[in-house]
């Protein structure tokens, strides 16, 4: 008994041994559940990837739709990715807006995040409050507010209103990400650079900026992902310019074109790979 009790057993060693043997099978309950849960979360992704390789036949004169039964393996949809000109245009809009909005939001959000992390200034509380509100306001409220604004101004909605709106909702996320990174930095490094004769700007560019970079990159990727994924705010601010999610939503009233699943698979693999690379890179830097 005593030999059993003194053996290292991890966290549960405090429990009396007879208790453990009686309940041993329950040890597998929680890990099994977690496994099943992750399977459930990934299930739609598996289906999307799988059925992007399924054959389907379109009716007369209609474009093909994904079939719910397995007909046969094909890579046809990957070869015909750009067959639907509207879908291609929507994807191009999403990528362009995503890139531009992420660049703008990263620039603005990084500066704001730095200001919040490093200084106490008048209006800081107000800035905090606006950041909090813009993150937590329901998307449909943001969409309706932006659309009201554009309607009141008489501005026609399209590419530029999409860019302005997407940048707006990403700024706060970048600011929060960069601020977290800046708050964790050792400021004595910058002070050391200045003690060694570097001017404040040089010290910032040579010391602080490289240290902040993982936070800035994470903010950029987050902003890009938020923009690519956004549906609600796009629907309210896009006018006739369709984005990838809004096109897909409108087009699928009559069934899902298999190209959509193929594109989703490519976007998924790209995003997951980028995130993994970013995670590994930031781990190495810290």
């Amino acid at each position, binding site marked *: 008994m005593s030999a059993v009790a003194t053996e290292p057993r991890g966290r549960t060693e405090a429990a009396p041994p007879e208790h453990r043997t009686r309940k041993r099978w329950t040890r597998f309950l929680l890990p099994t559940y977690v496994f099943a849960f992750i399977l459930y979360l*990934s299930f739609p992704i598996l289906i*999307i990837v799988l059925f992007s390789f399924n054959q389907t036949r379109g009716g007369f004169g209609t474009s093909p739709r994904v079939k*719910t039964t397995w007909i046969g393996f094909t890579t046809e949809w990957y070869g015909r990715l750009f067959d639907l000109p509207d879908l291609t245009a929507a994807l191009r809009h999403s990528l362009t807006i995503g890139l531009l909005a992420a660049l703008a939001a990263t620039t603005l959000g990084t500066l704001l995040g730095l200001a919040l992390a*490093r200084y106490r200034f008048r209006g800081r509380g107000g800035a*905090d409050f606006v950041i909090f509100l813009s993150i937590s306001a329901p998307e449909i*409220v943001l969409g309706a507010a932006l*659309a009201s604004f554009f309607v009141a101004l008489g501005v026609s909605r399209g590419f530029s209103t999409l860019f302005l709106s997407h940048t707006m909702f990403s700024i706060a996320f970048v600011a929060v990400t960069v601020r977290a990174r800046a708050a964790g930095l050792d400021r004595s490094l910058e002070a050391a650079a200045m003690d060694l004769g570097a001017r404040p700007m040089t010290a910032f560019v040579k010391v602080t900026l490289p240290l902040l970079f993982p936070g800035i990159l994470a903010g950029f990727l987050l902003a890009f992902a938020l923009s690519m994924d956004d549906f609600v705010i796009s629907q309210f601010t896009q006018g006739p310019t369709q984005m990838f999610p809004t096109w897909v939503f409108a087009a699928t009233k009559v069934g899902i074109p298999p190209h959509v699943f193929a594109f989703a698979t490519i976007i998924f693999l790209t995003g997951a790979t980028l995130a993994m690379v970013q995670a590994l890179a930031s781990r190495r830097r810290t």
Partner: protein
Amino acid sequence: MERSVQSDLPGLAPPDLPGLAPPERRPRRSRAPYGLAAPALVWLLVLFVIPMIAMASLSLQEGNSLEGFRQTFRFANFSDAISQNGEFLIRSFRNAAIVTGIALLLAYPVAYWIAFYAGRFKNVFLFLLLLPFFISFVIRTLAWSFILSDNGIIFGSLKSIGLLPENYRVLGTTVAVVAGITYNLLPFTILPLYVSLEQIDHRLVEAAKDLYASKTKAFLKVVLPLSMPGVFAAVLLTSIPAIGDYINASVLGGPGTAMIGNVIQSEFLRDRNYPEATALALVLMAIMLVGAIVYARVLGTERITEG
């Protein structure tokens, strides 16, 4: 001012460091935060604060899309909007409550296991939980409509082997809508739970067991109370998007499952009944603010933006 900037390393800074700094840096520093924050704050002012005011103004106007709207400060727009859409508001609250409850029950054990037992694989598990985010949520919802369709891969097969009657359906019902919203919001439920569970000092649990608490009792008396901030954040982050959601109801729902978001969307974009749509949107905003204020009162605002 100067002191507060360096106060994050009080013990490390040599006492004469402020003296070493060149004096011309001081006036520059005091203006720096405004220069840094201004571009972003102007953007947020013009495209967030002013639009909110524009929406509030629109919600008090009278008129129609053909003849235009006039500002009459008609506060009755709000009571009209609420009384005309009671059915949708109630359905939204009910769905959001069910979604939040189910999501908490499903998510808590997962967050608990990862925080306490995943060891050095924590980040791997978090990554797996966030995988769905790499596919647009519209497409994920479409995938569920595809999976749940009447003759789809689940119900089609169950029907063909006779386990379900031919007319059995889930797609188009409230069950599908609630399931869809729950699926889409689960990562938002798990993350705050995980963050608060991860911060719990494991020695507290061991101390409880040393004091002869059973595993269950240690959980109920130590872990659960300490994770309450996370539970509260999870409730907020799940229920607020759930109330305003309209994608799940339009992709997975059918007749009689429309939520308040569907009303706002169609009143604004299809019928151009701006006053009613904006009044309803402001009602949602007010609900979110009440939740946030309660949260801030209980736990403090710092946690929200710096968490």
